[in-house]
């Protein structure tokens, strides 16, 4: 016969109340263990916007405003290593920036003149040797109308590597902390079991099935995890808002550019789901052999 939901919820609440300290400790540990990887995810997400991505140009050539863009592009097209040449006018660069950073776009709108000069983006063939972007940039500096030319290859690669390290560190640290949270929930449940050992024995003697005995503990731990996840989410949002407030008060040339958005809805949902999962896993581990 299926268990009555009211019985399970009532017992789970009773377990939480009788072991209030253990419950608080487990919730706190889960919150902490989800906050840290969540923070890494937040930083990585915002940094990711600065990342070049697979379509990143190998070199960006900035043109003088009076330069003949087509002439420069034609000269560049003579190089067989080049796959694609894209001319980016000032307006296109500005609208691209606004799309990427909607929060900063409004501030730029107040400027009288276009903040970005026209440029040409170069993409190289996949067969081109490593360092081609740098060589093309160097060669293009002698073309009339070119103001400057920089290879994005090296910077992009370093940036992507750094981003990968941040994400990896977040995953490793998050994994360790989530494991710690699972173990701490398991300990909390074990303590709760010890507190309720006598009555569990009585329940069994009165004819309670193992599911009836365990279900309240499962629910209790899952709810603890969910609450821990919700608290972690709240802390993450608090941190994000605090960052925005501090940066609005005293803008930073780099931080102000990348610290612009919170986790997307998937990330928001994952934090409490991970918490609930950690709680449930901890309780299953703890009750498994009892």
């Amino acid at each position: 016969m299926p268990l009555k939901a009211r019985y399970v919820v009532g017992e789970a609440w009773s377990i939480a109340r009788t072991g209030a300290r253990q419950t608080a400790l487990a919730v706190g540990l889960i919150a902490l263990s989800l906050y840290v990887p969540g923070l890494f995810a937040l930083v990585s997400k915002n940094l990711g916007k600065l990342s070049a991505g697979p379509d990143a140009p190998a070199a960006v050539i900035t043109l003088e405003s009076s330069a003949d863009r087509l002439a420069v592009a034609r000269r560049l097209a003579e190089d067989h290593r080049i796959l694609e040449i894209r001319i980016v006018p000032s307006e296109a660069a500005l609208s691209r920036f606004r799309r990427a950073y909607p929060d900063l776009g409004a501030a730029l709108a107040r400027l009288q003149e276009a903040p970005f000069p026209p440029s040409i983006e170069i993409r190289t063939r996949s067969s081109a040797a490593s360092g081609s972007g740098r060589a093309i940039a160097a060669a293009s500096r002698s073309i009339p109308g070119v103001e400057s030319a920089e290879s994005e290859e090296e910077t992009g690669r370093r940036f992507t590597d750094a981003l990968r390290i941040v994400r990896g560190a977040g995953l490793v640290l998050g994994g360790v902390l989530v494991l710690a949270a699972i173990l701490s929930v398991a300990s909390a449940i074990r303590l709760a079991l010890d507190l309720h050992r006598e009555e569990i024995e009585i329940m069994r003697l009165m004819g309670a099935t193992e599911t009836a005995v365990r279900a309240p503990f499962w629910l209790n731990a899952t709810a603890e995890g969910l609450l821990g996840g919700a608290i972690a989410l709240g802390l993450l949002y608090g941190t994000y808002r605090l960052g925005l407030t501090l940066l609005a008060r005293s803008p930073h040339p780099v931080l102000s550019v990348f610290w612009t958005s919170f986790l997307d809805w998937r990330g928001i949902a994952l934090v409490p789901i991970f918490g609930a999962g950690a709680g449930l896993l901890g309780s299953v581990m703890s009750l498994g052999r009892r």
Partner: protein
Amino acid sequence: MIQLFRVSKEYGRFRHALDDVTCTIERGEFVFLTGPSGAGKSTFLKLLFREQPPTSGQILVNGRNIGVLPASQVPYFRRTVGVVFQDFKLITRKSVFENIAFVQNVLGLPRAEQKRRAYQVLKRVGLHHQMNAYPDELSGGEQQRVAIARAIVNEPTLLLADEPTGNLDPVLSEEIMRLFLEINIRGTTVLVATHDFEMIRRMGKRVLSLDRGRLRDEPLRREIAPSAIREAPFLPMG
């Protein structure tokens, strides 16, 4: 109703709690199980309640061999048997009502029905006015009566009691025995483990006597004239 055939229970290699016990208890009987401390009385009850399996032999309760009952079936079997323990085994953080209605609550019986049944059994043991009290607020005799109410709320066909009066004074013990008789009169088979020989003598019921794990013949069965207690109509005790 209950049949034990060559039942033995060993704890470790050398401790024989029960040794080759064979006996039958008929449906509706009232039987005392007696013997000195360590004779195997509690083990006998634990086997009947399937708190432990026998080491060897067969135990039939209502035609089912409970010695080989799968673990998953044990809770369902236990719901058909009422058990009263010497130490009451009440859950202190639950009220009298919650203690009695525990299994019904697990099964999802409507709360009104749970209350109705709890009230009925509490009335039978004279504690219907203590429905919302907590065990710690009750005297020893009252706690034992709550334990009896809990044992009979599911209308079991078999009621087991392990030294139910062990912690009670003679007056309260008498009251508890009156309750068991009342329950027995209604058709429930009652098996009471006790070493209170005076009580056994006064009750004049069949006696199973254990000594060092072995069942003696039944010399203690005495056909004493039915006592006033046996015949008295049940009166709730407040």
